[in-house]
């Protein structure tokens, strides 16, 4: 499997994402100005501060030339994983539901959190068990996922809530402790925690590797 990791001006986690992907397959960086995803089997939209997070996090990156190709790839059922800023970009692009708001405490948070896997019917959680706990770090300023009550109810009913923060571990005030969501088909997944920073026990946890292993199993 070959992963394509997007790189915007201001991305900062794309190289860790490449290293994480290379633990389960091949990977290459894809510049934001590219308009094709030739030979790519799975896309990672990495963390960072795309376009300086000006206006709103992800608001400008959604218009990058490469995002047209990502939309086509996602529409065709290709696996897309958005991490942190990548999650924000995918929400701004309308590929994922909801929006990411500034943390409730108005402070940058950086800590290890426990995630609960809510559904395994996605490209990022197929290798997990329902209810499984994953230890993965967060580091963000605008990670408070929000959806109006009717939308949240619809997402809960349709199984589009993928991850929740463990009890008492919600670091940003996300509604219903939501840490990650997916699109209707489960092939586009976004989350605020950083699985690419949790792929080796030497750095505290290798639980994040399960997300990349899951994505690598999806038929191209």
């Amino acid at each position: 499997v070959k992963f394509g990791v997007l790189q915007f001006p201001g991305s900062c986690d794309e190289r860790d994402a490449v290293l994480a992907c290379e633990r389960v397959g091949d990977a290459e960086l894809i510049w934001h100005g590219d308009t094709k995803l030739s030979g790519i089997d799975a896309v990672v939209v990495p963390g960072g501060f795309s376009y300086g997070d000006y206006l709103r996090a992800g608001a400008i990156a959604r218009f990058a030339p490469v995002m047209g190709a990502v939309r086509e790839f996602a529409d065709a059922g290709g696996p897309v994983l958005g991490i942190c800023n990548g999650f924000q970009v995918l929400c701004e692009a309308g590929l994922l539901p909801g929006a990411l708001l500034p943390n409730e405490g108005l402070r940058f948070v950086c800590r290890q959190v426990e995630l609960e896997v809510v559904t395994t019917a996605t490209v990022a959680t197929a290798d997990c068990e329902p209810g499984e706990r994953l230890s993965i770090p967060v580091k963000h300023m605008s990670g408070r996922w929000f959806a109006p009550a009717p939308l949240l109810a619809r997402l809960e009913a349709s199984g589009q809530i993928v991850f929740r923060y463990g009890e008492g571990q919600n670091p940003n005030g996300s509604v219903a402790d939501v840490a990650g969501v997916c699109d209707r088909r489960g092939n586009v997944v976004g989350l605020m925690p950083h699985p690419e920073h949790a792929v080796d026990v030497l750095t505290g946890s290798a639980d994040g590797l399960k997300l990349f292993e899951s994505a690598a199993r999806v038929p191209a």
Partner: protein
Amino acid sequence: MVELEAPDDADLDRLCRQLLANPLVEDYEIERIPATSSASPPGVPGPGEGRAA
């Protein structure tokens, strides 16, 4: 508040909806500053200039 020159405001609503605001969590309104007949000091909209907020 975003202030800009817009000789034609036909696309202002689309600009607000798709870029300047996230309609899921934000609202917006567009306010036009009437054109004035005299030169304006720096930073103040001049003749024919508008403002989107």
